[in-house]
């Protein structure tokens, strides 16, 4: 059945790799672009860019907006947009800060663990509720998502000002700060990494086993092993690098979990499949028995939940609730999705791509900062890179 894996030849391996590359050219192109950016900055900064401390920081810096990008992929895939995510996350962050600073100490003094958990619950709850309200208006009342979320952006900007009264609210209690600023101890980092790697290999063999039971042709074993090994090496490299500095950062871990869950949901559940079908052809999806309203509603609820996560991490990460919380994050999230290959026309896009897109944005910002490029020029460069990246994609699609 799998004769190909029995006689592994060098040409065969190369041919298979080339095939794999062509099939996912878009994904690989963007990864190549990212590596190119890293090399460029590494040279320009004399190696400082790739130091353990900087890699750790760079990846940690991207987390807050990346939570938003994880949810944004599905929103854009269904043909919608969410312009409110930045301000909703900001709103959640100032509410949580308010609870941390002025409420818990009055009603639950000295209960740090409990109040931290409650803060998280409040944050996620508000995010989800906001998502549900917006989702209801968009799907059941049929107001375009662009309009609803633009309105919500303004409304929550107002909400932030109301809650903060224009002041900065401290949210720097030790346990709460751990969510956004904490690190796993090196040994814990290793345990997590090894656990994940074992799981990856188990999943791979398990899936081959199942396919064999169904009598399907399998891809060569070495290809699957190679792929899984590559992911494992990446995880190990990350852990080695960050352990030589502070360890695996908690928000990065949270982001990885969110991204993996959402990637799984988008591929392996009816909810995810329906989202892609709705974005690809709404009428065909409707006639195939897809409940479009319910599905679009659910997507905005999930988006809201992720705004909640982002808001809690934001409050904890910067240690304050501020007037400017979440300013412009929605555009970073959208740009990450687009860079990662999500089609603005709907129907196409992956969580994995959006994460690579977010990493590119973060890599650019971070590199320019190290080079002391003024923030005005950072914006100019980021804008040009976004347009250039999408143009490249358009160009290759046209000339394929």
């Amino acid at each position, binding site marked *: 059945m799998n004769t190909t894996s029995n006689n592994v030849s060098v040409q065969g391996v190369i041919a298979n790799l080339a095939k794999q590359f062509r099939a996912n050219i878009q994904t690989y192109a963007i990864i190549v672009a990212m590596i190119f950016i890293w090399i460029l900055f590494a040279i320009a900064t004399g190696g400082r860019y790739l130091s353990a401390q900087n890699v750790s920081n760079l990846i940690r810096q991207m987390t807050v907006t990346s939570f938003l990008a994880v949810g944004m992929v599905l929103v854009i895939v269904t043909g919608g947009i969410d312009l409110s995510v930045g301000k909703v996350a900001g709103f959640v962050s100032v509410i949580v800060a308010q609870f941390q600073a002025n409420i818990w100490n009055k009603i639950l003094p000295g209960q740090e663990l409990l109040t931290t958990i409650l803060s998280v619950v409040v944050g996620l709850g508000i995010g989800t509720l906001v998502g549900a309200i917006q989702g209801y208006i968009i799907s059941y009342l049929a107001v375009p998502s662009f309009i609803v979320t633009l309105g919500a952006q303004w409304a929550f900007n107002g909400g932030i000002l109301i809650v903060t009264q224009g002041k900065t609210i401290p949210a720097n209690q030790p346990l709460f700060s751990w969510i956004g600023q904490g690190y796993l101890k090196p040994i814990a980092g290793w345990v997590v990494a090894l656990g994940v790697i074992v799981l990856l290999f188990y999943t791979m063999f398990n899936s081959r086993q*199942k*396919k064999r*039971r*169904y009598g*399907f042709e399998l891809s060569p074993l070495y290809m699957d092993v190679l792929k899984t090994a590559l992911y494992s090496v990446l995880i190990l490299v990350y852990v080695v690098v960050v352990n030589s500095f502070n360890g695996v950062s908690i928000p990065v871990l949270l982001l990885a979990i969110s991204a993996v869950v959402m990637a799984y949901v988008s591929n*392996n*559940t*009816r909810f995810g*499949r*329906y989202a*892609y*079908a709705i974005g*690809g*052809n709404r*009428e*065909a*999806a*409707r*006639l*195939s*028995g*897809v*409940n479009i309203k319910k599905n679009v509603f659910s997507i905005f609820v999930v988006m809201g939940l992720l705004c909640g996560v982002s808001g809690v991490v934001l409050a904890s990460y910067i240690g304050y609730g501020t007037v400017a919380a979440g300013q412009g994050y929605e555009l970073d999230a959208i740009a990450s999705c687009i860079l990662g290959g999500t089609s603005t026309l709907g*129907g*196409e896009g992956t969580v994995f791509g959006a994460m690579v897109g977010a990493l590119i944005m973060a890599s650019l910002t971070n590199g320019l900062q190290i080079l002391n490029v003024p923030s005005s020029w950072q914006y100019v460069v980021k804008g040009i890179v976004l347009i250039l990246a999408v143009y490249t994609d358009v160009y290759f699609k046209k000339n394929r």
Partner: protein
Amino acid sequence: MNDENTVIDAQVAKVNTPAGDDIILDFRNVTKTFPGVVALRDVSLQIKRGEIHGICGENGAGKSTLMKILSGVYPWGTYEGQVFIEGQELRLESSSIRQAIEAGIAIVYQELTLVPGITVGENIFLGKEPLERGVINWDKLYADTQRLLEEYKLDIHPQALVKNLGVGKMQMTEIAKALSENARILILDEPTSALAEAEIEKLMEILRTLKEHGVTCIYISHKLNEFFAITDTITVLRDGRVITTQPTRNLTVEKLVSYMVGREMTERFPESHRQPGEVVLEVEDLHAVDPEEPSREVLKGVSFNLRKGEVLGIAGLMGSGRTELAMTLFGEYGKITRGTVKLEGRPISPKSSRDAMMHGLSLVPEDRKRHGLVLIQSILRNISLPNLDRFATWYKIDDNAELKASRTFAQSLAIKAPHLNVQCNTLSGGNQQKVVISKWLMSNPKVLIMDDPTRGIDVGAKYEIYKLINDLTAQGIAIIMISSDLEEVLGMSNRVMVMHAGRSAGTLDITEATQERVMALATGIA
């Protein structure tokens, strides 16, 4: 090369003498290759001035490649050989529609390309509005439109909004637009696939008028009888080759089909031995209104019954309520105001497609690209879309079970594709339709409603779909087949229900149904 080619080459050599004055368009030894495929193989073809030249062939025979060379989609230099227009070589740059227009070529595509929100006149003069000191001269624009429409006897109001026109009049607008560019060669790419019988007749009249005005037409269609009604000359393409070019009067339908498929096709419809069983679906005095516009009644009393294992054909003109009936039964369009629908004796009233599916109804919709498929997705994803419930535990889809079941259907319907991850927009019309049918068969229907199932697909694929319909009825599935093609309705049905103005005008047993009787009922004169 084999004998057949030598014969064809000899024919080509004979007509390939230096172009006389009466030759307006001349393809000389055009070859177009794509990686791994030869789309056109040494095609030589001459179109005479003022004639209506039919080009026919199965899907993939090379018709659209030929037209794409004329429109500049495949620019000069990407193909071998030469194309001459009135003795001048055509050298189009990449995708330059403008250049093609200037060369006098206009194409009316299968899918219309008008802007719906503006008027007929604005559409015709889009991009070349008459200006007066930089401002559009609306009076002149509408006067010119009027003159143009009158000259070619096109019955449209210049100031009508395009979105309010029927498909037939939209097409007239499209033709008027082409004529306003002083097109010398008008190419019609399956112009009748969306038209009803009466509109087709009207189009034929227009083409005759154009011919009187000296416009040359290239007419591409899958409906063979149209060639005999309108063309002077017919060219048959097969596998990228010109098989023959002959005056229409020398040809017959049988001869044409045998040229197209390369074999004698004695029967257009496969033989069937159906034995209808008990009644599955009963519809009585069904009335329904447009949900967007409750005062507009779209169904005004439809009654019929459907037996297990039979095909009930539904014939009727555009706007007779055929598609509305299908959508209403499927729970996706009309709001039922009166009447009953009974499935296996129990009254049902589907509120959504999901609801209808649960009851065992399936619908292969009229417009497979708009309603049937998610074109950017794979065959697999399309087939499984309405059936994910059966592959899912409370959250997870078993992708192995999904693939296995989809494969079974793809194989039994002979969908031609290397694997099921192929995107649907790369498939031919016939294969796309098979994907749509697969996805609905997987839902295990008792009643399968097919709305124009062979629209825009080639003769060979049609035959396969007909055979499939026979297989399904043999399994006991009851089929409602709506079709614009009268021969198809008469060739495939056990009984024919004719609709007129939202009503069932009559149901004929196949033994008593003739084209004349059906048309009489459909037009309301019987």
